[in-house]
């Protein structure tokens, strides 16, 4: 029988991991699968949380409705983001531009700029402090299982993560749109020759990925009761790391890596000062990349 202390830490680690995973999923769809460098996902996550919050304070709907409002806000944000920060750069279709690093990093910058604008705007409107959330909406009611304590939010997040994971896997592997997404990410020009509407495919991916990100935002916001304009930053970095550890384009890989990160954080807190726990997470990242240079489930490099 394991020490209940360790069991509790494991449970906390798993729940942390699921939270990272929740954010990593949408991020992986846009950044990893579609292969578009998107630095504004953290803000989409925050927008989801604020949209949900505004719904709660405006008319106090049931939780499920709040989640749908966040989803819708995320979808809208994703749509706008793609239109403003990504689509304009597709006007350059000559080979020099397509293969240029500068062009690739340009979308990195445009999405970064959008994220700055969105975050500053939210700070102007709402202030940078934690928003007060109606406590009844928080999903942190304790549940005791033997010696360990979890909260109802853990179960909700687990459920949503599994749903998203399953849904995305189905979408990517079994549906025509998934095939198009992978085709566009692999070779956008080739996709055009095959009659794929690349603009539409990219927009759809953004909408789905951002809706997922926004849902993650409101769920995590309600889980911790902490909704504030820069709330997307830390989980954003963790999701980024998890995505890359998983191999960029693999959604299950990202989820597994997110759980590894969560577990390593909570377990390392047991053995060393908590300020160093991130050190362990990043050490895991480096070790993973040293032994799996393409991440855990990444594709191999092309032959010459």
């Amino acid at each position: 029988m394991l020490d209940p202390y360790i069991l509790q830490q494991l449970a906390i680690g798993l729940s942390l991991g699921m939270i990272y995973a929740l954010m990593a999923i949408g991020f992986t769809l846009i950044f990893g699968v579609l292969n578009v460098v998107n630095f504004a996902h953290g803000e989409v996550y925050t927008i989801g949380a604020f949209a949900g919050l505004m719904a709660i304070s405006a008319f106090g709907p049931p939780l499920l409705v709040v989640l749908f409002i966040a989803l819708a806000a995320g979808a809208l944000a994703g749509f706008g983001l793609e239109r403003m920060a990504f689509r304009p750069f597709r006007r350059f279709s000559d080979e020099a531009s397509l293969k240029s690093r500068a062009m690739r990093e340009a979308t990195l910058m445009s999405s970064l700029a959008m994220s700055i604008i969105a975050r500053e705007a939210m700070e102007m409107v709402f202030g940078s402090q934690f928003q007060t959330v109606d406590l009844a909406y928080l999903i942190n009611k304790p549940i005791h299982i033997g010696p360990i304590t979890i909260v109802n939010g853990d179960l909700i997040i687990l459920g949503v993560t599994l749903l998203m994971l399953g849904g995305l896997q189905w979408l990517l592997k079994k549906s025509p749109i998934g095939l198009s997404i992978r085709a566009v990410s692999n070779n956008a020009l080739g996709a055009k020759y095959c009659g794929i509407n690349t603009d539409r495919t990219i927009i759809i991916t953004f909408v789905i990925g951002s809706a997922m990100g926004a849902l993650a935002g409101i769920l995590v916001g309600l889980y911790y009761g902490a909704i504030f304009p820069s709330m997307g930053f830390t989980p954003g970095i963790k999701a980024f790391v998890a995505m890359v550890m998983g191999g960029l384009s693999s959604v299950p890989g990202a989820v597994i890596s997110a759980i590894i990160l969560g577990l390593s954080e909570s377990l390392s807190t047991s053995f060393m000062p908590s300020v160093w726990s991130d050190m362990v997470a990043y050490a895991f990242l480096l070790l993973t990349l040293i032994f799996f240079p393409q991440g855990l489930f990444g594709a191999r490099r092309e032959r010459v």
Partner: protein
Amino acid sequence: QDSVKLGYQLPLTGNTAQYGQDFKDAAEIALTKFNASGALPVPVEIIYEDSRSDAKEGVTIARKFVDDKEIVGVLGDFTSTVSMAAAQVYKKAGMVQLSQTASHPDFAKISKWQFRNITTQDQEGAVNAQWMMDKGIKKVAVIAEQTDWGQSVAKGFVEPFEAAGGEVVYTEFFNRGLADFRSIITKLEDQAPDAVYTGFFYEDGAQFLKQMAQLDAEIPIYSTSAAYNDQLIELAGEAAEGLLLTATFLPTRMDANVQDFVTEWDKTHDHAPGQFPAQAYDAVNIMLAAVVKAYPDLTRESLRDAVAATSDFPGVTGNTTFDENGEPLKELTKASVVGGVFVEVE
């Protein structure tokens, strides 16, 4: 000269803007009241500059204030990091700098130009240690944020507490903005302390309290004046019940000064003012009092001397006297959360 100019550097944008905005509001209240009182023949003006809590911007603003020959004194910054970087400039140029919150142990020691009106943790920690001792608490865990301030919270408490025969069973620092304290709480519980002494601001505090409740950790929690904020209770709800802390400012206190400030504040805010805006309100008033004292021979030098001479200044956070290092000496009150409000305890 048709007005007296002061500078105030503070974060008005960025992650810590909520604090800077509060400072600005509090300062405006103090300034308006002062200018209306006719204590000086000319009005005083405060120039606010946004430092974003970024040291680069902080030193640039400091240079800007120093360049402006009309500015005689400066308030701010919020964080010690930025205050300390800017202090190097004020030190060299010879301009008084009074920070409402900088709590780095070395801040006031930088030069004769630096002052602060926030209590040092040597003071606050000792009061808390004594308080626990009085209640017969012997084993304590210390949790504080990983900043210069958090470090001083731990140090300020541990030294007197151990000297008095107490035992610190566990010390842990956390990075500001940590979302999840549960690992730390689990570890803390494992050490079975009689009480926890904490150094956090209200946002981290609310998270910590909620998660303590979530994990059913029924251990008394002590904290510092930095946690004194109505929003802590609002964010943490039930979980805040029973929190014990020391404070220098109680908006409920029936003191004319305090009530004046609180009434003005309530006109534009839906929360009672917390510790920080009260600090800013006092800082501005201390500075203004010094301006009056030095007027009309108002120079940076004379203002500095007037600030240094502050003694028993009656503010909303209690009476302030600067010692020879520019450190404040203050009265601390004990408070607790009971029934969703802070109440003074004996």
